[in-house]
C-alpha cells in the first residue's frame, strides 16, 4: 500500500516538476511576475509537504531550502535573477534525481549539498532560515478558480449610523461573495441604562469560503474604510490540508482567534466533558465565540471534503499498462465483432444481422473511447524542449528562442513517448547547425537571436509536427559533396534540391565539420528517420539558403487500430490504411494491352502508374480477367495497387511483425481477420519508394 502511495507521489511530483520547469523558464522572461513566483513557491511547498508525508525525507529537506528562498522572493526580499533561475533549474533536476526509484545509485549528493549551500547563501542573515508554513495567512488575489476559506472579523465604528451606512447591507454583501457563516458577537452590548440607542455595539465574525480573493472582501468595505476594523485571515484553501479533511479542534481555533488563553484552555481540557460543553460551562468564553469556532471547523471540513471529492471526480490515475491491456482487449473485441458480422451475413439471419450491427456500433464507440483514453496533449513534451533550447544555446553561446504552438494537440501516449528522442535530435540539429552565432546573424542583417518554431497541427488521422528555424538553411553543395564522398550518390547524378535534402537521412551522413557534444556524429538524422518510420510516420525537409530550414514530421494519431481497406489477391488478403485510399477502378486485360504493357491506368484522362501486387508479392494462382486498382495518394503522388478483389472496409487491429519479418519490404504489420486468418498491412509509402527505385533502374 505504502509503495503504491509512494509511486503515486512520484507521479504527482513528476508533474509538478514539469510545471515548475515551465514556470521557472517563464519567470526567466518575466522576473517581476508575482503569480509565477507564487506558482514556483506552491510547487516547492507541495513537493516538500507530500514528500515528507510519504517518507521522502531527503526530497523534503532539500526542497525546504529552495522553498525558503522563494518565500523571500515572494516577500520581495530577494530578486529573481538569472543565477537564481539557473540554481532553481538545477535544484529541480536534483529533486527529479532524488525521486528516481534507483536514486541511491545515481544521485550526486555532493552536488545536492552544494546546491543547498548556494540556496542558503541567498538568504540574508537577518532572515529566519526556514520557510514559514504560511499556506493559511497568505492572501490569494482570487480569480484563479480556487476557493479559499477566510476568517473575517468586522468591527464597524460605534457611530457608523451617522455616516448613513447600514451595517446589515454590508454583511449581506459579504455573504454574497460565497458560502458563509456569520456570528454577531454580542459580548460588548451594554445594559439598557448605559445604552446609546443609535450606537452599534455588536461586531461580526464571519467564516467565508470564496474564490473571489481577499481584495473582493476588502472591496465590500471600501466606502467605510475609516470606520471599520477589518481582520482577514486565510484559514484554508489552495494546497493546504491536501488529503486530510480534518481541521483544527475547537480549542485550537479559539486559541488561534485569541478568544481564550492557553492556560484557560488547559484548565478546561482537564475536565471530563466534551470540549464545547466544558467551554460553555466555564463561562470563560462567550458562546458567540464558540459558535463561530464551530462554524469555522464545519466550513473548513466541508470545503476540504468538497475539494477532495471534486479532485477525485475530476481525474483517476490508472497505471499505463492497464490502459495498454484495455486497448489490447478492445482490439480482440474488434476482431471478434468482425467475425460475428461476417457470420451473421453468411447465415442470412435478419435477427442475427441486427444484433451484429448493434454490437458493431457499440464496439466502434468502445474503440474510440478506449483509444481516446491514451491520448495526451503533446505540450508535455514541448515543455521539455524549452529547457533543452535554453541550456544548449547558452552552452553554444547562441541566442535562441523557442516558440511553440498547438501544445494541446493530442496524440497516443506511446507515440508521444517514442517521438521524444527524434524531436530532441531535430531540435539539437537546429540549434547546432541551423541557427547561426549572434555575430554571424548580425553580419547577415538578421536579428541577433534566432527562433525555432515548434508546431503541432492536427490533420485528419495524423498529426503534423513542424520544426522550423530561421537559421542558415541547408548547404546544397556541401550535402552533394558529402553524399558523393560517402558513395551515396554518383558524381554525375542530377538531384533536385528536395532529393538532396532527403540525403541527410542516409545512414552515416553528416556535414558538420566537427563532432560536438550536441551533434555531428552522423547518426542522428538516420536514427530520426527510422524512429519516425517505426511510428508509421514520414519526415520531410524543406530549406531555403539564408532563411532557414523546416522539418515536417507526419505521424498517425494512434498505433493500435486503424480504419483500412481489405483486399484479396488469390487466397491472400491484405489491408491498406483507408486514409491513403482515394478510389477503386477496374483493370481489364484490354486496358493492359492498350497501355502496351506499361503499368499505367487511365483515370478520368489522367494516367496513373500502378503496381501489380500479385507480381510484387509473388502470389501464385490465376489472375482474374477483371482486376481492381486501388488508387492511393501519398504526399501528392498517386499510385495504383492492383489486387484481385476489394472486400471492403475493415477495422484493423495492428499486430507487429516478428523480428524475422521486420525488414520485409512493403509490409508494416499484420492483423487477424474475423475468420481467424491473417492479413498483411501494406506499407504504401515504402511500396511507392520501391516502385520509384525499380522505375529508375529500368532506365
Amino acid at each position, binding site marked *: 500500500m505504502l509503495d503504491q502511495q509512494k509511486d503515486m507521489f512520484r507521479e504527482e511530483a513528476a508533474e509538478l516538476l514539469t510545471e515548475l520547469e515551465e514556470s521557472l523558464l517563464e519567470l526567466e522572461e518575466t522576473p517581476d511576475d508575482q503569480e509565477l513566483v507564487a506558482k514556483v513557491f506552491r510547487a516547492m511547498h507541495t513537493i516538500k509537504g507530500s514528500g515528507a508525508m510519504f517518507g521522502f525525507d531527503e526530497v523534503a529537506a532539500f526542497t525546504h531550502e529552495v522553498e525558503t528562498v522563494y518565500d523571500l522572493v515572494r516577500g520581495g526580499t530577494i530578486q529573481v535573477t538569472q543565477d537564481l533561475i539557473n540554481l532553481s533549474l538545477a535544484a529541480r533536476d536534483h529533486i527529479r534525481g532524488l525521486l528516481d526509484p534507483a536514486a541511491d545509485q545515481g544521485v550526486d549528493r555532493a552536488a545536492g549539498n552544494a546546491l543547498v549551500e548556494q540556496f542558503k547563501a541567498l538568504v540574508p542573515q537577518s532572515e529566519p532560515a526556514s520557510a514559514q508554513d504560511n499556506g493559511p495567512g497568505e492572501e490569494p488575489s482570487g480569480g484563479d478558480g480556487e476557493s479559499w476559506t477566510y476568517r473575517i472579523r468586522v468591527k464597524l465604528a460605534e457611530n457608523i*449610523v451617522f455616516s448613513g451606512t*447600514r*451595517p*446589515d447591507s454590508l*454583511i*449581506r454583501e459579504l*455573504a454574497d461573495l460565497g458560502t458563509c*457563516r*456569520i*456570528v*454577531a458577537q*454580542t*459580548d460588548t*452590548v*451594554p*445594559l*439598557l*441604562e448605559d*445604552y446609546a*440607542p*443609535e450606537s*452599534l*455595539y*455588536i461586531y*461580526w*465574525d*464571519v467564516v467565508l469560503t470564496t474564490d473571489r480573493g481577499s481584495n473582493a472582501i476588502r472591496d465590500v468595505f471600501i466606502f467605510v474604510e475609516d470606520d471599520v476594523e477589518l481582520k482577514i485571515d486565510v484559514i484554508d484553501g489552495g494546497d493546504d490540508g491536501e488529503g486530510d479533511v480534518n481541521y483544527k479542534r475547537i480549542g485550537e481555533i479559539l486559541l488561534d482567534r485569541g478568544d481564550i488563553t492557553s492556560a484557560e484552555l488547559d484548565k478546561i481540557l482537564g475536565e471530563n466533558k466534551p470540549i464545547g460543553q466544558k467551554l*460553555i460551562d466555564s*463561562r470563560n468564553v*462567550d*458562546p*458567540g465565540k*464558540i*459558535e463561530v469556532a*464551530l462554524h469555522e471547523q464545519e466550513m473548513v471540513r466541508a470545503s476540504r471534503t468538497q475539494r477532495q471529492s471534486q479532485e477525485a471526480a475530476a481525474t483517476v490515475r490508472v497505471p499505463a499498462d492497464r490502459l495498454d491491456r484495455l486497448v489490447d482487449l478492445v482490439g480482440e473485441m474488434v476482431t471478434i465483432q468482425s467475425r460475428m458480422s461476417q457470420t451473421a451475413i453468411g447465415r442470412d439471419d435478419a435477427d442475427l444481422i441486427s444484433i451484429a450491427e448493434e454490437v458493431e456500433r457499440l464496439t466502434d464507440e468502445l474503440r474510440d473511447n478506449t483509444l481516446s483514453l491514451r491520448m495526451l496533449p503533446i505540450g508535455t513534451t514541448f515543455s521539455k524542449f524549452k529547457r533543452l533550447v535554453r541550456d544548449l544555446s547558452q552552452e553554444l553561446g547562441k541566442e535562441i528562442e523557442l516558440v511553440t504552438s498547438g501544445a494541446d494537440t493530442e496524440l497516443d501516449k506511446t507515440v508521444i513517448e517514442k517521438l521524444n528522442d527524434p524531436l530532441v535530435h531535430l531540435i539539437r540539429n537546429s540549434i547546432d547547425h541551423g541557427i547561426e552565432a549572434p555575430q554571424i546573424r548580425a553580419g547577415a542583417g538578421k536579428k541577433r537571436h534566432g527562433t525555432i518554431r515548434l508546431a503541432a497541427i492536427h490533420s485528419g488521422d495524423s498529426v503534423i509536427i513542424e520544426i522550423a528555424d530561421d537559421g542558415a538553411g541547408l548547404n546544397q553543395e556541401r550535402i552533394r559533396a558529402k553524399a558523393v564522398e560517402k558513395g551515396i550518390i554518383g558524381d554525375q547524378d542530377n538531384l533536385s534540391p528536395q532529393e538532396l535534402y532527403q540525403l541527410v537521412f542516409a545512414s552515416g551522413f553528416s556535414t558538420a565539420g566537427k563532432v560536438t557534444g550536441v551533434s555531428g556524429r552522423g547518426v542522428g538524422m538516420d536514427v530520426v528517420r527510422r524512429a519516425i518510420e517505426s511510428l508509421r510516420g514520414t519526415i520531410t525537409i524543406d530549406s531555403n539558403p539564408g532563411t532557414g530550414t523546416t522539418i515536417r514530421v507526419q505521424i498517425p494519431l494512434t498505433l493500435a487500430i486503424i480504419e483500412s481497406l481489405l483486399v484479396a489477391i488469390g487466397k491472400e488478403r491484405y489491408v491498406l490504411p483507408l486514409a491513403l485510399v482515394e478510389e477503386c477502378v477496374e483493370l481489364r486485360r484490354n486496358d493492359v494491352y492498350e497501355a502496351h504493357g506499361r503499368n499505367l491506368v487511365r483515370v478520368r484522362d489522367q494516367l496513373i502508374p500502378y503496381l501489380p501486387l500479385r507480381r510484387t508479392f509473388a502470389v501464385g494462382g490465376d489472375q482474374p480477367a477483371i482486376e481492381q486498382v486501388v488508387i492511393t495518394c501519398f504526399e501528392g503522388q498517386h499510385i495504383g495497387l492492383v489486387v484481385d478483389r476489394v472486400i471492403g472496409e475493415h477495422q484493423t487491429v495492428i499486430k507487429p511483425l516478428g523480428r524475422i519479418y521486420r525488414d520485409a519490404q512493403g509490409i508494416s504489420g499484420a492483423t487477424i481477420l474475423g475468420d481467424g486468418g491473417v492479413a498483411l498491412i501494406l506499407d504504401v509509402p515504402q511500396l511507392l519508394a520501391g516502385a520509384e527505385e525499380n522505375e529508375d533502374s529500368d532506365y
Partner: protein
Amino acid sequence: MFEIHRDTGSDGALVLHLSGAATVEQADTLRQALLDTIERAEQEHQPLRISSTQVTEIDSFILQMLCSAHRTAVARQVVMAWEGSPSAAVMEVIRGNGFIRHAGCSLCPDDQHCMWCEK
C-alpha cells in the same frame, strides 16, 4: 410606521407588541418602552414578553437592543422571552446577521432561555 403597544397576557405577563418597521430610527422610542416595561415587570414580579408577529422590518440595531434588554431583565430577575414566534421578517434578519445561538451567553442564567437560541 412603527408602533408599540403594551398589554397583559392571561398569565399576568407584560406583553410588548411591536409592529411595522423596527429600525434604528425607532431605537430611542423602543429603548424607553423597554426600560419602562422591564421596570414595571420587576415591580409586579411578572415576566415580560415581546411580540414581533406584526413587525415587517427590523435591523441589527434593534436586535442588539433586544439583546441588551434581555441582559437588563436578567439583571433585575425579570424573565424575558418572545411571545410566540418572531415574524418571518424578523427571523430572516436574526439568521442573516448571525444572531442565532446554540447556547445562551454568560449573563443568561440556566433557567432563562436566550433570545437567540432556536427552540
